[in-house]
């Protein structure tokens, strides 16, 4: 039986009449990277804050690392690490002082602090800069230092709330290497993001919209389960005109423009290929190529959010 690091059961949070999180249930396996996706205001941060035991739930329960978030909030806090999208270390203290402070707060001994400090400085590439005032460090370094401080006490579970927002792509990549390293050491990582390419790095992802779970599964599963119809990528001279033409046809389920390409979802691939060639040549649009593509997570989420909007209407 796989052990669950996090078990969430009908977790709900109201703010007055507004339901921020609506009967959410899911489980996160030990040592996995669990991605939490959704638009701003979908309820990601509210859920994380409840799981970190800093926000009380209106109803429902959750167990984090085996501890009940409502009954044993102190135990939960001792066993997790947390890092938020806004830098939250002391900018007016030095790197050393920040590490010492959090080390002591989590009850580490001097020896443990020294050992972990070595690791953090190495990991954040801050060797020789430990006496710098934290506020003077560049953004990417700060984020990695923040992650270092969040896992100083070697928590089994780490919550990362949009850790890479405002970080350049190179740094973002390095940051994900660190997340993978943690996961390799058996640490469970729950991470929220709105970069869909980051979601591909996760073992499992969950999409949340208006406080409700829309889909859960591995990136592969999501693509396979939700996108059953073929998607054709069309490259041609006038993408916008081509889209308006294809959209009208009864055999096109969905069309969307991705840069200079057109993505068309169709039930019958052979028929659609023929039809697209015919329509475009009639209108004098030169066609470069048509290819069947594997759907990206973006295709999946656009599809899922569309379905939700249709349900609501």
């Amino acid at each position, binding site marked *: 039986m796989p052990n669950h690091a996090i078990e969430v059961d009908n977790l709900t949070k109201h703010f007055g009449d507004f339901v921020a999180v609506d009967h959410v249930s899911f489980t996160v396996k030990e040592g996995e990277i669990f991605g939490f996706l959704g638009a701003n205001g979908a309820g990601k941060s509210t859920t994380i804050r409840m799981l970190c035991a800093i926000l009380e739930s209106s109803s429902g329960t959750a167990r984090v690392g085996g501890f009940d978030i409502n009954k044993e909030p102190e135990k939960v806090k001792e066993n997790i690490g947390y890092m938020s999208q806004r830098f939250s270390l002391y900018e007016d203290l030095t790197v050393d002082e920040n590490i010492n402070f959090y080390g002591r707060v989590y*009850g580490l001994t001097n020896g443990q602090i020294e050992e972990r400090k070595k690791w953090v400085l190495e990991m954040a590439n801050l060797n020789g800069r430990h006496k710098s005032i934290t506020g003077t460090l560049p953004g990417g370094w700060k984020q990695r230092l923040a992650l270092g401080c969040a896992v100083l006490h070697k928590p089994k579970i780490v919550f990362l709330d949009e850790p890479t927002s405002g970080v350049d792509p190179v740094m973002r990549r390095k940051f994900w290497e660190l997340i993978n390293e943690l996961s390799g050491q058996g640490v469970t990582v729950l991470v929220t993001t709105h970069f869909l390419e980051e979601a591909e790095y996760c073992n499992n992802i969950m999409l949340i919209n208006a406080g409700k779970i829309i889909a859960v599964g591995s990136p592969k599963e999501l693509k396979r389960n939700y996108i059953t119809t073929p998607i054709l990528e069309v490259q041609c001279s006038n993408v916008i005109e081509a889209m308006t033409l294809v959209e009208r046809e009864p055999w096109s389920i969905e069309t969307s423009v991705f840069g200079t390409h057109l993505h068309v979802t169709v039930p019958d691939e052979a028929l659609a290929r023929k039809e697209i060639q015919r329509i475009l040549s009639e209108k004098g649009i030169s066609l470069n190529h048509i290819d069947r593509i594997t759907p990206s997570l973006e295709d999946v989420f656009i599809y899922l959010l569309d379905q939700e909007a249709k349900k609501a209407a």
Partner: protein
Amino acid sequence: MGKADRAIQHRETLMFKRLLPIIKKEFRQIRRDKRVLAILTLVPAGLLLLNGYALNLDVQSIKMAVYDEDKSATSREFINSFVTSGYFDYVQMLSSSAEATALLDDARIKCAVIIPRDFSHKLGSNDAADIQVLVDGMDSNMATTIVGYVQVIALEYSQKIVLQNLTKIGRGNYIPIQLDARIWYNPELKSAKFLVPGLIGFILAITAVIATSLSIVKEKERNTMEQIDVSPISSVELIIGKMIPYAVISMVAAAIVLVAAFFLFGVTIKGSIVLLFCSTLLFVMAALSIGLFVSTVADSQQVAFQLAALMSMLPTMIFSGFMFPIRSMPWWLQIVSNITPAKFYLIILRSIILKGVGLSAFWPQVIYMLIFVTFMLGLSARRFKKTVG
């Protein structure tokens, strides 16, 4: 030792372990934050100098002009008694009463004495002589004092004349009531001695309230509070960890003011230093709990600063008896004045510094402050848990 006892002891040592890093961190931040440092050091020093020298309530060297219509030996002798009193500075002799009005208008003199033509004649014939005194009433406190001085001088002069007349009939050594007034506690009636205790209260109120609230709101503003929230630090630990450094600094500020007051104004402490220390600590606790309250209301340092200044400076200035005597306020304002713990602390401070009396003289005030601290700290801690923790 039972299992439960051991668990409790374990919790306590853990709590102490977390308190220490918070206190250390706070002192480091204070050292680096120029603004807080300025509030904690320059403001008390500036206030002491400003209030000690500029806010001199002693009325001395009153600029005076005289219009002497009589121009007799008697009138000159009378005028001379003003100058020799030491309170008046003789500015000039006037040639008309209109000139006196002009000088008063220009604020070049504070008071004008007009002696009528028949002054010496009336005195010589045992008649009552009238003199006119014009006083600048812009500052009502000072005007009252000046009128008081003039009355005493006129009375002494009259007494002299009465004595002369009595001597003529052989009863020269008879004075009905011999007044021997002694002013206790502040014999020289020096304003500084009265002001310094008030100033200590004022400075403590401002520094403690503003600095504490700023330090907590800064954590909210910069998001560091979130990191504290998810850590095992409890709100009680955070509150105590924040209060201890500012209590220490406030106590040091109070000590500095006392030492400076001794060297600058010769103010000495007549009573017990231990009592002074304890009551000051109690007052600092009251101020810190107000600061804590402010931090639960304000979300930005700007708002916190304004609110803290408003909640500390204004009531302390107006309702503590620092500058305005509470007894001369209307009854309802006297009741309102109870909102500030500074009022009670000032009574204690003046009792210790000026009178040198013990706890028996001000235990009601101590009890009031204890109640205030308990109430305010409880209220703020509850709000703190809800809004911050």
